């Protein structure tokens, strides 16, 4: 029998935590970018400026929620919900600590991949429903990018799955008690992290929303809270990417002295900071470079990694 109160509590904690963290990231990212560019960033509201997200939220809620008359209304309206829902659904399988997980699915990895592939729809039909050329160009880029990098994402995390012998995320974390998978699976980690950046459309893979070229890409026509949903969705997928990297390659909650939850949050925060650091440092790829990089570099590396890992696992099994 399912323990309903425990499940409800876990859902509440993870949902609340993820959304709060996503809201906070709006401020954290701007602040960190500021620090790395020798500025302060938003530091006015509250201690260190930490209430900036709240002010942004109030602003974005009270803005006019405008639907362009040329847009496909129904599709236009449901699109922002898809972003947030798919990102939040993925958190259902993220194990934060032993038995601190909403649903310990046997196919947790596949569920994560399924949700990230569904997230592609938000970008694609969002750009299409806006019925404007910049949004459409953004969504065209997004289709090619997301479809390609989904393949590499799946391929490069299969090495970790092979080593753990399970699709269950908790099992994968438990398999890393001795050594983190980043050591035997370094190529897999690189591939997964890059594909994840592309899936979350973060720099250097943010062509779908390249603000220097396409206004704001697929969400050019969105305003008010709908734009806010896209924004929160992006931060949610950044958190998700960090969490999944920690779970698959950096030993999840394992670590000495501190309690498991603290270790998980620490490692996850380190990756979030790394993602922001990458945004502060690296320039954007050109689109043809992006695709040829994906198919000519990441894909062969992921395949070789998978081949070698499979061979080693078979050889060890005897």
């Amino acid at each position, binding site marked *: 029998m399912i323990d309903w109160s425990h499940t409800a509590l876990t859902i509440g904690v993870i949902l609340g935590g993820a959304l709060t963290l996503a809201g906070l990231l709006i401020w954290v990212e701007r602040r960190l970018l*500021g620090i*790395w560019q*020798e*500025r302060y960033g938003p530091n006015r509201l509250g201690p260190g400026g930490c209430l900036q997200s709240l002010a942004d939220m109030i602003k974005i809620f009270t803005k006019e929620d405008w639907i362009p008359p040329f847009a496909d209304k129904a599709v236009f309206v449901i699109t922002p919900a898809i972003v947030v829902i798919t990102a939040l659904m993925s958190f259902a399988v993220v194990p934060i600590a032993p038995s601190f997980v909403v649903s310990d699915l046997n196919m947790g990895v596949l569920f994560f991949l399924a949700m990230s592939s569904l997230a592609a729809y938000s970008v694609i039909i969002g750009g299409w429903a806006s019925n404007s050329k910049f949004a459409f160009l953004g969504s065209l880029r997004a289709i090619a990018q997301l479809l390609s990098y989904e393949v590499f994402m799946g391929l490069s995390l299969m090495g970790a799955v092979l080593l753990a012998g399970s699709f269950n995320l908790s099992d994968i974390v438990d398999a890393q008690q001795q050594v983190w998978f980043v050591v035997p699976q370094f190529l897999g980690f690189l591939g997964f992290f890059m594909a994840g950046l592309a899936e979350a459309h973060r720099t250097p893979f943010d062509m779908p929303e390249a603000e220097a070229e396409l206004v704001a890409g697929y969400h050019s026509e969105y305003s008010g809270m709908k734009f806010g949903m896209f924004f929160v969705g992006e931060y949610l997928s950044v958190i998700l990417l960090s969490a999944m990297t920690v779970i698959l390659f950096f030993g999840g909650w394992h670590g000495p002295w501190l309690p498991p939850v603290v270790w998980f949050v620490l490692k996850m925060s380190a990756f979030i900071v790394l993602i922001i650091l990458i945004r502060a*440092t690296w320039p954007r790829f050109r689109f043809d470079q992006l695709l040829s990089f994906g198919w000519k570099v990441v894909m062969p590396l992921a395949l070789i990694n998978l081949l070698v890992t499979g061979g080693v696992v078979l050889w060890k099994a005897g």
Partner: protein
Amino acid sequence: MNIWIYARNLTLGLWIVFKRTFTKPVTVQYPEERPYLPPRWRGRIVLTRDPDGEERCVACYLCAAACPVDCIALQAADDPTAQDRRYPEFFRINFSRCIYCGMCEEACPTNAIQLTPDFEQSEYARRNLVYEKEDLLISGTGKYPDYNFYRVAGVKTRDKDKGQAENELPPVDVRSLMP
């Protein structure tokens, strides 16, 4: 191999940016920290008075002529109480057009129009940026505390006759043969 150079450069870039965490930002936090403005900063324009408290402006239109964006408008009038002194009947500067170039200050023969180190001129209504004479005129002398145009100029005013100005010789009597 090229790829090692790429990898090295990418990580090096990350490291260089990360080092910025420990440097002090160059930002001046404006409303609390005031930036230093030198005395000759070209900010808000004022009309000054001479040491005696009279208006310095003689309404010669040179500032209006020098202004590259034509934001100065004025009209000369004679002062009925002070013979031979001229003053502007109105003097208007449209600060929404002003580019703070300082040409008016350079053109002014009497040092009346001066630019001051004050830039905080934001307004909610654009109309409020049109300054009239009473907004522009200050009670001090500005950058030139001792200068008084009428005291050095060789014109006759109610206070002095010709030849009584500073560093001025008495007027030559053209009808006399004496040196």
